[in-house]
């Protein structure tokens, strides 16, 4: 039972190594960077490794209440990663302890380092699992699974939370296992609907009820009135291809302008550095700053009549109604328009 090791974390270079399977061979595998192969293996058969993990978990489970149910739960957890409420210390598997310390670049050693890494591994497990399910989207590894990790972890690690149910007083132990199974099975598609813990997040009922109806209304009302997105083409002189933007995403010219800047920055030389990010190409920074704001480029649109107009003259609402497509024109092309555009921009700025 050579447990596969999800080495994705290693590629990211830091402490986010995710582990599944039992403890013994963790350290060695991780260090050797057999990551790639392990990963594929993981993707195919992580369920089995989870199961094997759970069996060892249950054998060490010395809990009192709910022992049997816990043992049969499909849980994502290393041996010893019990729900802490039942009073068991994080499982003192000697080998686990050592390996974990090696794996995680812990801060200057604290006494709690062990338990820290223990918990970290628990988290890592969840991420490993859901990440496997997602097909290893490395870039989104942290952010996506940060959320999902919380999901699965919340339902399995925590002493069976009281599920939001008609009777909160019902037998609590059975339900979490059902939830866990659901989340395991459903993991391949959308993340499983998380069982709601009673009273969490701590928001008063009035607010909960109000917001539930408010968000429904707001989708209809917020300047959209139920109408679909308004995608229009945006072309930029010299760019190899066009883009599309949804005008309903913006409520003012400034927002549209910033969005277009970001969208088209890649087509000019170097990187956009206006947010102060250092180390980028300084050469074209000034060029880009002037994008839509003056000398180099001018933003124009084609209206319902087919005329090319300068963006910014009419109120935003009217603009949305009449704009058919956008064009980012080179200043040299917009001979008649450009000086006025610059004046306008200067007065605006």
């Amino acid at each position, binding site marked *: 039972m050579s447990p596969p090791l999800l080495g994705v974390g290693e590629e990211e270079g830091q402490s986010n190594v995710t582990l599944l399977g039992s403890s013994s061979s963790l350290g060695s595998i991780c260090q050797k960077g057999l990551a790639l192969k392990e990963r594929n293996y993981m993707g195919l058969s992580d369920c089995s490794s989870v199961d094997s993990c759970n069996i060892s978990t249950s054998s060490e489970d010395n809990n009192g209440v709910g022992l049997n149910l816990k043992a049969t739960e499909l849980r994502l957890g290393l041996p010893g990663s019990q729900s802490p*409420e039942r009073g068991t210390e994080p499982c003192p598997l000697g080998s686990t302890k050592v390996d974990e310390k090696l794996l995680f670049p812990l801060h200057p050693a604290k006494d709690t380092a062990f338990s820290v890494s223990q*918990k970290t591994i628990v988290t890592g497990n969840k991420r490993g699992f859901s990440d496997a399910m997602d097909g290893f989207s490395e870039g989104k590894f942290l952010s996506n699974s*940060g959320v999902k990790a919380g999901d699965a972890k919340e339902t399995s690690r925590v*002493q069976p939370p009281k599920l939001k149910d008609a009777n909160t*007083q019902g037998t609590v132990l059975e339900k979490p296992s059902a939830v866990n199974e659901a989340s395991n099975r459903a993991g391949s598609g959308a993340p499983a609907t998380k069982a709601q813990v009673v*009273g969490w997040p701590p928001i008063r009922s009035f607010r909960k009820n109000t917001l539930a109806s408010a968000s429904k209304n707001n989708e209809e*009302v917020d*300047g959209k009135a139920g109408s679909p997105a308004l995608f229009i083409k945006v072309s930029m002189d010299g760019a190899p291809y066009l883009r599309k933007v949804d005008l309903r995403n913006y409520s003012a010219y400034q927002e549209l302008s910033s969005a277009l800047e970001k969208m088209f920055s890649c087509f000019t030389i170097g990187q956009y550095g206006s947010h102060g990010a250092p180390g980028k190409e300084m050469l074209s920074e000034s060029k880009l700053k002037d994008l839509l704001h003056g000398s180099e480029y001018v933003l124009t649109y084609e209206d319902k009549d087919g005329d090319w107009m300068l963006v910014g003259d009419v109120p935003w609402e009217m603009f949305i109604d009449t704009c058919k497509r956008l064009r980012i024109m080179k200043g040299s092309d917009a001979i008649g328009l450009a000086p006025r555009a610059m004046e306008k921009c200067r007065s605006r700025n």
Partner: protein
Amino acid sequence: MNPTLKKPRESVNLSELTQSTFPDEVLEKVLSLVQSHKDRNSASLVCKDWYNAERWTRTKLFIGNCYSVSPEIVARRFPKIKSVTLKGKPRFSDFNLVPENWGADIQAWLDVFAKVYPFLEELRLKRMAVSDESLEFLAKSFHGFKVLSLLSCDGFSTDGISSIAAHCKSLTELDIQENGMDDISGSWLSCFPDDFASLEVLNFASLNSEISIDALERLVSRCKSLRVLKVNRNVTLSQLQRLLVRAPQLIELGTGCFLPDLTSRQYAELESAFSNCKNLHTISGLWEATYRYLPVLYAACASLTFLNLSYATIRSGEFSKLLTHCPSLRRLWVLDTVKDEGLEAVGTSCPLLEELRVFPADPFEEDIVHGVTESGFVAVSAGCPKLQYVLYFCRQMTNAAVATIVRNCPDFTHFRLCIMNPGQPDYMTNEPMDEAFGAVVKTCKKLQRLSVSGLLTDLTFEYIGRYAKNLETLSVAFAGRSDWGMQCVLEGCSKLRKLEIRDCPFGNAALLSGLEKYESMRCLWMSACSVTMNGCRLLAQERPRLNVEVIKDENSDDSADKLYVYRSVAGPRRDAPPFVVTL
């Protein structure tokens, strides 16, 4: 207590110096100027003279836990009460952790008050059980009754409010907020007599029924001293405009529904109405507010100190614009739909900000990562160094961000951070959030209230116990590793008054380590922890002056599912329902 007793037999040295020079009348006059109940409590401990003078001059009563004392005891000690504030259920009842019919019924208090304080003027209740009969009793028993405030109470309906409106001829304040009440009809508003004109505060924002807008207009026109008006969602913008022109003196306004449905002329009229409200300090409501109509507020925002947008799902664009008009903002409540960009705008536009609350628009929606993150919070802290109170709901946080935040804002008195996934670690380093809260307690010396969240080990509680010396209220959920954590807090936080814990691995050892502590606290709540009935019984035996109450779930094992411990001079409750076991 004999009020005429001037010279106690056993006199301390100092009393000989002071007692002969201070006639009772002077003492009473001086003490009557002392308003704060905490100061009054201290004054009453000085000596018997002071105790007596204080009890004769106290007019405002504050009872933080209605079961800590009985109405009879209160009536015996304080003969001249005009104003009562009562709080009932444990705070976690707001989040459905306390079953219905738990108690905290106001009627027992009203029965005594009607006899002893017939001139009672003010009643402010929080988390109490209030029935329509009680409200009617209240309305008919106290003829000079002026102020009724019901926050987070339950058990009554709009019929009860009708009684108040109909019978309280001197009413100045009617404040109904966020209660578990039956909203049968809006006819209560029409129950105010036609000549009734004394209202100064009217808040019915959390009621859902339709009121008669005509009746409201007439009421507002009559009540020239009206300074607070918070209407509910059924009041439209055009109706609001008509109200505003009748009450330009308003200091606090809760708008109704901000759905854009005005002609341009109506819009202009509304704008003008707002610009005529020169005294507005607080604006709230704003349901369905969108970028289209927010500008109508701009003229009224110059002196705004409190903006409550927590029911408006607005985005960062219109939010930022609105904020540029609110430079004097001190308190801001907002939804996380404004995102980090919106919070950056807060940092830029509101340098005087002292309180920020960011609520989640979709607290149960897990699939999409949205809302605010740690960078929004950091941005606010960078621009608002005077921040003292924060309530922040988010889905991700890092230790480093929190450390930066408290470095920027060391004056926090209330720090309530809710990372919405229970037990979630620092999302960048994957470590527990111990260092975050460690930074908070080390840096913020004035911290009074702390709510922790995220993945936390006992280290967090070691930090809290060691550094949070002014901490009075601590809320803990899904945190900690062992009894040691809770022990650290109980031993270290000398000023701790309220401790509420849920879903943590703290057991009997932790519970019993606080034996010396609980009588100096208002209350302790522990639910879904590892405490057993035996542990609770031990506590009850050792400390007879504590009420140790357990609410058990249906399984019959030994675990004490919900434990509520509080000090009381009134002894065990006599009105406990069957599911509350008093040990």
